[in-house]
């Protein structure tokens, strides 16, 4: 079921389950997700709110411990690690968040914030740190002299996100998880940051996991895309192919719902498919069946697994949209 990678994948997630307790109820945030990311690839992870994509991103980094399943990074099992060894691995994997201003400590200067990873990693020479910080700030398009002595609240959202990207890059990581990096930014700034991410990926040879709810944004930067719904993966496939010919009904629904900035494409009156169910009590069998026009008894009884529908494209559906 895994994509055949020519060399071993950089990241391998195997049947990951993440639950957490709210009050006296258990929320099934991630229920058995498996995928791989090859070196140098960008995997886009898309889904609506409550699907568990953010939780998955944090679980990969072990910021949220999984109930079961494994995460392997470059061959090493992260789920089995603790303490110092985990901290060492963390230097190779970084995270960029949705709210750039909240990601920066409001009381620390930018220079200190970006130097922090270096200090934690044990770079003792202050001059070396300063040089590396200046280099990475230049790489993201900010002038170190103007930026290093200031506080986060003096910058706009877009600039703060550049600073966050700089912080993520300063240790020369192999892998970056981007959790909704442009959702909180203005439309005209989004394009800048997306271009910047692409450029940084090329320059530093990064592998990315790009999490977002905006399909067009995800498609713009990803090689392959995974669609998530209520804790499970619905569909995985190459970007162009997945959006041109979606195999899972949910993917098709998402694509149809996107407002297109073209007045000729008057949106068809949407079929009222109702609300997503609660992650506390997900439906039996296929979780999408309550909103799916193709659902039947089998969908209720049997949980579908990812099956190949076309070369490179996999869908977890008993009645995929194949033509």
């Amino acid at each position, binding site marked *: 079921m895994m994509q055949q990678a020519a060399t071993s994948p950089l990241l391998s997630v195997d049947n990951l389950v993440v639950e957490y307790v709210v009050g006296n109820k258990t929320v099934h945030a991630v229920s058995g997700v498996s995928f791989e990311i090859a070196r140098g690839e960008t995997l886009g992870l898309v889904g609506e709110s409550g699907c568990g994509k953010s939780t998955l991103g944090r679980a990969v980094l072990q910021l949220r411990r999984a109930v079961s399943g494994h995460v392997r990074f470059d061959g090493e099992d992260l789920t089995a690690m603790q303490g110092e060894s985990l901290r060492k691995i963390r230097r190779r994997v970084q995270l960029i968040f949705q709210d750039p201003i909240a990601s920066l400590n409001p009381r620390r200067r930018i220079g200190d914030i970006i130097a922090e990873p270096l200090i934690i990693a044990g770079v003792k020479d202050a001059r070396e740190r300063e040089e590396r910080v200046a280099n990475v700030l230049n790489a993201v398009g900010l002038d170190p002299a103007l930026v290093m002595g200031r506080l986060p609240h003096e910058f706009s959202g877009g600039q703060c996100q550049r600073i966050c990207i700089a912080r993520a890059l300063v240790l020369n990581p192999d892998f970056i998880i981007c959790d909704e990096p442009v959702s909180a930014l203005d*439309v*005209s700034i989004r*394009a800048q940051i997306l271009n910047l991410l692409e450029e940084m990926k090329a320059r530093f040879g990064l592998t990315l996991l790009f999490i977002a709810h905006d399909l067009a944004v995800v498609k713009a930067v990803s090689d392959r895309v995974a669609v998530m719904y209520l804790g499970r993966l619905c569909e995985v496939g190459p970007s162009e192919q997945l*959006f041109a010919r979606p195999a899972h009904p949910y993917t098709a*629904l998402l694509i149809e719902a*996107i*407002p297109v900035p073209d007045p000729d494409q008057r949106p068809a009156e949407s079929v009222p498919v109702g609300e*997503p169910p609660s992650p506390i009590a997900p439906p039996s069998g296929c979780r999408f069946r309550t909103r799916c026009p193709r659902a039947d008894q089998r969908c209720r009884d049997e949980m579908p697994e990812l099956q190949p529908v076309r070369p490179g494209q996999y869908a977890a559906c008993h009645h995929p949209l194949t033509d």
Partner: protein
Amino acid sequence: MNAQALLSVENAAVDLPTARGNLRAVDSVDLTLAPGKTLGIVGESGCGKTMLSRAILQLLPKKAKLSGRVMFDGQDLTRLSPDALRKLRARSLAVVFQDPMTSLNPVLTIGTQLTETLQEHLELDTATATKRAVELLVAVGIPAPEQRLTQYPHQLSGGMRQRVAIAIALSCEPKLLIADEPTTALDVTIQAQILDLLAREQRRRHMAMIIITHDLGVVAGRTDEVAVMYAGRVVECAPTPVLFKNMHMPYTEALLAAIPKLDTPPHTALPAISGRPPDPTRPMKGCSFAPRCRYADGRCQGEKPRLERAATAAHQYACFHPIKLAAGAGA
């Protein structure tokens, strides 16, 4: 102005005193809206679109100063007494906000919030008001409406709450509905449903509507006319198809180009707009977009362009170097 227009904003300006100086949130805006039509106001954060909507609704913060006129249904809203304004609200002028969790009162049931508006403005008795409330909930597509009446906002999902907010807004049959980023906080599949609901109700009630959003996709298929705002001013205003096909403002062009679209192949570099929106406390002498505009020259930096008409009278723009001008048509 047009005697037929339901809403006519004339030279409106909003000034806000702040610690950093005077903030011109809205600067000489003129808008008209005919009954039953939909106007989309598009712009990024800080462009003044929210302040403009508050100015129309006369809901500006206390410190703000509004100049100009807001003519609604023949009356100048800026001159009405608070009592007269209150009567006008809900009956003629309704609003739906972005975040339904904060626009609904968390400690009152849905039923109470619906019926109190009905009883207050239409003077119905409790039984009739309750019946109307149920009808409204059905109209906005909420299943099991009788049960919802006794529920509280936190027991409903985001999409449901927004439907309730729309039901409350529509309850007194307003002539104009202003929707301020009505779907920004919602998932994309719910977004489509809510926008369809608004369009359906608008057609049914022959209501005028203003949709305020930063998403050009939202206005493309669902509005008759679009006004693009930047740095407090309306920089382009045109019927929707004309705006998208034949835009004149470099900002509109740049904005449209910078949005990632579903039919572009992955890893295509997006034509981003360099720089960022101007600081509203430091008004610029020339065109506000000049520092970021690829067509700007000396004239743009020294002089502020005013709104002028293009070839079609309905199309207005404010630029010294408009793009895609049809040959022969004067600037």
